[in-house]
């Protein structure tokens, strides 16, 4: 979203209310241009627009996607405008959020055919969804909502309960939502700008009890994380983070971070990617004050969903690897990202970072934008694409 382009364009577009801007001069700049130095003011780079209609399956070029031997990709469901993060219901329903489309979807698998229903609409960027004990939790920009007993009433969903209201000045803050091993809901509260000194209420990952009580900050100095997961063995938090824009084509990187305990600070806005001081907000601060990233994921790649593999369909070398969807850049002369990567964590050695699925662009032409990852019970992979409004399924057969 993100900059939304509304696509990644959107991801970066985030920015918040004018009150939070660092100075009067900077307050005059638009969201995604804010922080752009004068030398780049004529840059034609602008967020990629989100198409208002999803692409029919037959027109999605999945045959262009390259995978390791034995893997296959196909369109699993289409017609899901602006499809974002996914969560499985107990009865096998796949729920999805969206951003500018304002919809929450339910995809019901009817033996080979998928039926798509809109279970909520007109919301403000309801990008985070999480299913737990029969209820669907939805994080839109202003509120955290709960739809009770949702799978019993997909055609006439209940009115949601409002569990929590997010800070008012977080107007441009779409959210990711996940359930921690501690049974709490985790979500991001991104920086209200491209680069600024954010108030405490922003640039963090926070958590709350399932009933909306007990709010607390978990990680600070996080510019905008719209994907996280917990390691299947250590149960520790790993999250992706979007680097700032307008520092050039090759810096800073989007990053992967490890937050084994609450209270760590990850550097924003003073330090980027663990080793670059911010030209405006870095003075007097050292990168060594902050928790460094585990891995640089590439400049402007728009690192989104992350999921550790715990299934048994894929070959054993993939077990416990993290898969990361790189939705793809807009703030870069030559496009970057547009891939799904894997990260293998190795004790005592740097993580191994490899391409898994490639070919979501052809030169400058966008062929697709992999956004979030979800495992099916059989160990195959679902990937949402918010550009085509579709879900892909990736399977393995030796």
């Amino acid at each position, binding site marked *: 979203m993100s900059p939304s382009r509304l696509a990644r364009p959107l991801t970066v577009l985030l920015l918040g*209310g004018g009150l939070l801007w660092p100075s009067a001069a900077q307050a005059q700049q*638009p969201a995604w241009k804010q922080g752009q130095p004068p030398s780049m003011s004529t840059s034609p780079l602008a967020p990629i627009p989100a198409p208002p*209609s999803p692409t*029919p399956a037959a027109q999605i070029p999945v045959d262009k996607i390259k995978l390791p031997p034995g893997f296959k990709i196909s369109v699993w469901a289409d017609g899901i405008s602006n499809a974002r993060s996914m969560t499985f219901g107990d009865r096998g329903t796949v729920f999805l959020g969206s951003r500018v489309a304002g919809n929450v979807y339910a995809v019901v698998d009817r033996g080979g055919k998928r039926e798509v229903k809109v279970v909520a*609409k007109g919301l403000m960027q309801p990008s985070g969804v999480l299913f737990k004990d029969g209820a669907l939790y939805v994080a839109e920009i202003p509120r955290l909502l709960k739809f009770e007993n949702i799978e019993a009433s997909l055609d006439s969903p209940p009115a949601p309960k409002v569990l929590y209201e997010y800070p008012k000045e977080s*107007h441009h803050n779409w959210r990711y939502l996940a359930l921690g091993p501690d049974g709490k809901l985790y979500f991001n509260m991104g920086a209200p700008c491209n680069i600024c000194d954010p108030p405490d209420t922003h640039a963090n990952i926070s958590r709350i009890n399932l009933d909306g009580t007990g709010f607390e900050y978990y990680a600070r100095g996080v510019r905008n994380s719209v994907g996280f997961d917990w390691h299947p063995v250590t149960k520790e938090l790993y999250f992706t983070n979007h680097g700032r824009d307008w520092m050039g084509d090759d810096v800073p990187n989007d990053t992967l971070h490890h937050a084994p305990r609450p209270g760590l600070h990850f550097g924003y806005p003073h330090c980027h990617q663990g080793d670059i001081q911010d030209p405006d907000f870095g003075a007097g601060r050292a990168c060594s004050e902050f928790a460094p990233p585990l891995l640089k994921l590439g400049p402007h790649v728009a690192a989104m969903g992350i999921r550790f593999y715990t299934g048994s369909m894929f070959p054993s070398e993939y077990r416990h690897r993290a898969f990361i969807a790189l939705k793809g850049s807009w703030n870069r002369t030559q496009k970057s990202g547009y891939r799904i990567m894997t990260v293998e964590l190795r004790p005592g050695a740097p993580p191994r970072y490899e391409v898994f699925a490639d070919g979501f662009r052809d030169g400058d032409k966008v062929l697709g934008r992999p956004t979030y990852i979800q495992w099916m019970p059989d160990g195959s992979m679902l990937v949402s694409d918010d550009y085509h409004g579709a879900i892909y399924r990736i399977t393995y057969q030796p």
Partner: protein
Amino acid sequence: MTSRSVALAVLSVIALLGALTAAATTGTPAVDVEAGRRKAEVCAQCHGPDGNATAPGTPSIAGMPAFYTHWQLIMYRDGRRRDPQMTPFAERLGEGDLADVAAFYAAQRATARPASTDPARVAAGRPLAEKFHCTSCHGPRLLGQGQVPRLAGQDFDYLMKRLSGYKAKSASDLDGMMTMVAQGLTAADIESLVHFMASLPPAP
């Protein structure tokens, strides 16, 4: 929207226009400008036969980027953007109609709206459009692109209402960008920018 309510909406459009073939309401979502022309007949009373409106306060939608018109119709239909005149018409459009109608208007040539713009205000607005990066999103001549609307030559009163609405955080806003941009504008900036936008040629 369920398929049933899509069907209902489509039926009501048929009733309204009386001229749709079944083929135009079913089948693939391929965009059909000619179908869009027929589906837009009902809009002509306010927006003009080719999308060039004349009543002050009603926007011209000729020459608007198709994605923009399409998204705004979705917003009216879903209640995210509200207007007593416009909302009922958007609610009657079916899912398959939106792209056709949007493509029809995008293909029409926009004509200038009469406006008594003040040359001094226009001159003051021009540099502001650069300074606030209006041109980065709306294009160098403010003709719009993608989900970003054409501003050049738009109705004066309408531009004033919308830009003031973003500043007051009361206007609907697809992705939140405009609301944020407008926070940096003073009332005098808004006035000058509106004079400038209204004075520009609305077509390339």
